[in-house]
């Protein structure tokens, strides 16, 4: 008797992806025209050329996904394309305000970095057929991450605005801690998937919460020390928050134990308190956060107050692209690109941008839930959380939810290291989501009826 079995093949969604990406490109084109009309009253002559490059880049990713990861999440690429495009338009708009044309501007460099980032992302998608391969490199990744984080302290190091987080190779500067984000996620995922049972089960019960044994707390303490090290020696509050937050979140996901979160937050609070007592630049940051508009606050970090004034000037609907004064804020295209966008696109515009990030995070975590292997779940969660923390720390910093720090807004802010890293991160996420959504190898009912075959006789 033939059994009526029909397998439901999940939609690949590649056509949806193509449509949404085209929509994203359309929005970017409109924004680009908007800037040009506001500046000079004309449609840019090189409109198709410039936006064509971005469209070609997005199309390349789309085609590789069709070829190598056809079940990958179809929403991720359009979101990232849109964010990257909006960033490019804003940087171009600030170029014009500063009197730089396209060929000498930061936007072109950002576009080149985008191309490079996508190149690496495509290489990852093609070369990395299965994310589980990464598990083999757990400790290599951990070691590499430490080296990258420590690199700015070597003679290669290069200090910008008081933060010692850059290395300089010839004319080329790079933030190695950016790459360390991915390496750390790989390391934590590999390490935790091995040790999660031990970390979760062994322990003492105090006040109804099971706390781990002292000897199991080694890695947590190491992460805590590394974070404090970065904060004190490199004056990089943002990366500290990122590393520590990432570790605690992944630890929690791996062990399902709230006690780890309590311990982690306790350690963080204690460390923060100690550092606050001794490091004057941390005290300054906190002062800028609490008393932004006081005389001393204005002196120490007028850029934060100016950025907030820019946001306030934007109001609900914004001044319109090219019609505000975002250049009055220092670093309007990197650290403060969010306030630049808020000024010109208004509350409506930045709500849309925050929702895009929220959607991106949601797609990443959904992939994590859909996966069947623990390593992949942890890795996807970690990588997604890296994005989420960056968004929160940057936007929270400029809107005074938390003290201002030096992270960059993913895909939007000007900066090569960040673009390369985040595109690579997205490539791994796409690869993981392909696994999460890909159906089990099809079960062929016909094989049931076939006689058992001897495969090998000894």
């Amino acid at each position: 008797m033939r059994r009526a079995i029909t397998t439901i093949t999940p939609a690949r969604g590649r056509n949806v992806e193509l449509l949404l990406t085209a929509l994203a490109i359309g929005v970017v084109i409109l924004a680009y025209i908007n800037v040009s009309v506001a500046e000079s009253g004309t449609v840019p002559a090189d409109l198709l050329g410039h936006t064509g490059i971005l469209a070609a880049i997005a199309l390349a990713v789309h085609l590789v996904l069709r070829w190598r990861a056809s079940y990958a999440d179809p929403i991720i690429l359009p979101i990232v394309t849109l964010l990257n495009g909006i960033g490019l338009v804003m940087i171009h708009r600030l170029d014009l305000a500063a009197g730089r044309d396209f060929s000498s501007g930061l936007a072109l460099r950002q576009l080149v970095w985008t191309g490079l980032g996508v190149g690496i992302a495509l290489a990852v998608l093609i070369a990395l057929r299965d994310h589980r391969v990464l598990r083999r490199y757990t400790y290599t990744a951990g070691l590499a991450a430490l080296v990258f984080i420590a690199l700015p302290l070597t003679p290669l190091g290069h200090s910008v605005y008081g933060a010692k987080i850059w290395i300089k190779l010839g004319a080329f500067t790079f933030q190695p801690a950016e790459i360390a984000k991915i390496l750390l996620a790989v390391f934590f995922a590999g390490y935790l998937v091995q040790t999660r049972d031990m970390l979760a089960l062994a322990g003492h019960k105090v006040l109804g919460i099971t706390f781990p044994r002292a000897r199991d707390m080694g890695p947590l303490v190491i992460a805590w020390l590394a974070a404090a090290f970065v904060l004190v020696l490199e004056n990089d509050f943002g990366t500290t928050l990122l590393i520590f937050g990432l570790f605690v979140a992944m630890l929690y996901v791996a062990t399902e134990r709230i006690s780890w979160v309590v311990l982690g937050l306790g350690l963080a609070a204690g460390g923060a308190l100690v550092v606050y007592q001794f490091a004057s630049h941390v005290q300054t940051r906190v002062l800028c956060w609490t008393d932004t508009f006081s005389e001393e606050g204005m002196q120490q970090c007028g850029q934060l107050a100016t950025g907030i004034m820019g946001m306030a000037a934007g109001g609900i609907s914004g001044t319109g692209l090219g019609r505000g004064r975002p250049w009055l804020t220092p670093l309007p295209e990197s650290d403060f690109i969010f306030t630049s966008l808020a000024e010109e696109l208004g509350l409506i515009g930045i709500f849309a941008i925050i929702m895009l990030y929220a959607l991106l995070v949601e797609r990443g975590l959904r992939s994590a839930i859909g996966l069947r292997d623990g390593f992949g779940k942890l890795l996807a969660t970690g990588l997604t959380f890296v994005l989420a923390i960056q968004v929160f720390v940057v936007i929270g910093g400029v809107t005074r939810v938390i003290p201002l720090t030096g992270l960059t807004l993913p895909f939007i802010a000007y900066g090569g290291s960040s673009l390369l890293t985040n595109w690579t991160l997205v490539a791994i996420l796409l690869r993981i989501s392909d696994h999460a959504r890909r159906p089990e190898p099809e079960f062929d009912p016909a094989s049931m009826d076939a006689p058992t075959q001897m495969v090998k006789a000894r």
Partner: protein
Amino acid sequence: MNQPIRRLSMLVSVLFVLLLGSSTWIQVLGSQDINDRPGNRRTQLESYARERGQILIGGRPIASSTPTDDDLQWQRVYSDPRLYSHITGWNSFTYGPGGGIEQAEDGLLSGRDDKLFYDRLTGTIAGREPKGASLELTINPKIQKAADEALGDQRGAVVALDPRTGAILAMVSHPEFDPTPLVSHDPAVEKKAWESLNSDPARPLVNRSITGNLYPPGSVFKIVTAAAALEDGQWSEDSTIPGPAVLDLPQTEVGLPNSHPGACGPDDKVTLAAALQDSCNTAFGWLGMQLGGDAMRQQAGKFGFGDDLEVPMKVTPSTLPAQMSPAQEAQVGIGQYDVRVTPLQVAMVSSAVANDGVVMKPHLVQSVLGSDLSTISETKPEQLSKAMEPKTSDQLTDMMKLVVERGTGTQAAVSGTSVAGKTGTAEHGAGLPPHAWFTGFAPADNPQIAVAVVVEDGGRAGNEAYGGSVAGPISAAVMKAALQ
């Protein structure tokens, strides 16, 4: 592991909602507060982005904006900067609007004020370039110029009012200053001017006619004391009161002497009219004690003492001491001790006498003109208070006429018209030359102008100064300009 991942996504949602909340706070709920913060570059630039309204006198602009090629787009120009320095003030890019109408009516001039909503709306529909409202002032350029010239290089102030309406006809404060460098688009020029004006010991930025260190009024205050006495009903202009050479002050060793040797009249007696005419200290000191502090404070309050006025610039309230001993009541009766006045307040006292006892609200802005120069609003004369009965003001007018006809104020006389007035020579510290005062109105029978003049430290006359000799001629020049 799925449960913690879901919880983690909840946490991320909460964090992102915080971001939405903080952005909403900055861009919507708290934005007005942030926009209005001093030093907000964007708000400053925004106000430069549209043409600022003009300040007009008789249809002729004394402050206007002309287009420029630089970032700020508009350059503020003051056509007669020194003559009107305290009236216009300045609208500096670095230091903001300040000093006069520029600050007091910044909302109207910049076009931000809600009163201009309808004008903005029709302007948008009609396709007019958005610009601020213009203000026509009550100043009479002829009187302003006469006051400015008569005061010359002496420090002090002159205020002229129309007693019937409260319109300010002239407002001069010396030393004056030139606001032009303060509105320069070159920050270095602005800074240099700002610093030198602020560090100048003569304090040129202070509008002495309405703010700054208040002056002791000296004998011009005797008008208030006399008004209180006449209103009381016990006394009239012909009443005889004590006027000895020195008035005994209770509870003190020293007496209150006259400024001239001897008694004010035979048998140490003098009529109220003669006491005012010759500025008899002992008679008014005696009156002060008879009336008491409360009566004098009450009378002063009816003239506007203690009121927070805006003309539209803020006027510092003139004050009487809150508590007085009998000896201090005698001092207050002649305008000494802790009586402090603005020249505007003194002019208001004279104009109340001139206007049948009614004090009109002083104002500087005649009308507000929209961007198409149509009138948006016109200032209607408004009664501030009733200082005294017409009967009292009639008697006071007679008494003040005597002052100018044959008393201490003969040098304030204007040929061809009758002037009513009162002199004052106010001591304000041992060894310092006195402030010279004159206040009055003309013509006495049909008043058109009320004037107050103060010359600090006796002006050019120094220690030899008397109100009549130093301030009197200035008042005469101002009245002459008004009545010709």
